[in-house]
């Protein structure tokens, strides 16, 4: 299997429970945030995004919460399924040198147990 997930914090949940994955970001000027999911052997896939002028956004079974006061982002997954097992990354968008640049967190591994 892929070694990208070694040394990552791991969240273990039972199938059907809700999962909350947290992320701290560093730049108060970040204007846009994205959550990515990376399954073993695949590239990161977009899950959901949120702009800095919002504090909550909902998708299908997923919700992202943004707390700009403490620079914290969370991803909530409702009724977690085995197919949700993956590494989850948050990313913040900053403007650097006139370009949009994504800064990625180290990731959290979600392990779903039946």
């Amino acid at each position: 299997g892929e070694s990208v997930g070694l040394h990552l914090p791991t969240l273990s949940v039972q199938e059907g429970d809700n999962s909350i994955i947290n992320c701290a970001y560093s730049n108060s000027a970040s204007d846009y945030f994205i959550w990515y999911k990376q399954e073993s052997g695949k590239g990161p896939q977009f899950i959901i995004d949120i702009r800095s002028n919002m504090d909550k956004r909902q998708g299908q079974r997923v919700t992202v919460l943004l707390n700009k006061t403490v620079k914290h982002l969370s991803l909530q997954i409702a009724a977690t399924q085995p197919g949700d097992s993956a590494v989850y990354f948050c990313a913040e968008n900053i403007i650097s040198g006139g370009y949009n640049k994504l800064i990625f967190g180290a990731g959290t591994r979600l392990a779903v147990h039946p």
Partner: protein
Amino acid sequence: DVKVTQSSRYLVKRTGEKVFLECVQDMDHENMFWYRQDPGLGLRLIYFSYDVKMKEKGDIPEGYSVSREKKERFSLILESASTNQTSMYLCASRPQGPEQYFGPGTRLTVT
């Protein structure tokens, strides 16, 4: 759907070899990126390109170069591969907004 493809899923090269990693996107995106991904470190930006024949250094460009001769293709070059370049390499492309679309990755091992 956006499709980003990378030429190899797995690659094994010897120290000192010149290595080419190819990336192609089919959505006419102007921006393309090369990252490497190492355990516990997340994704680190090597180089990016915002137009044909244009390139910009990312956070860790040392030991790498890139080429963008056509809009759809962005190549990462390791002039003389070293063992510390053993990693997962991810290519991404992006339209005008911030969201990036990733390829499946190339796992490079340098022995």
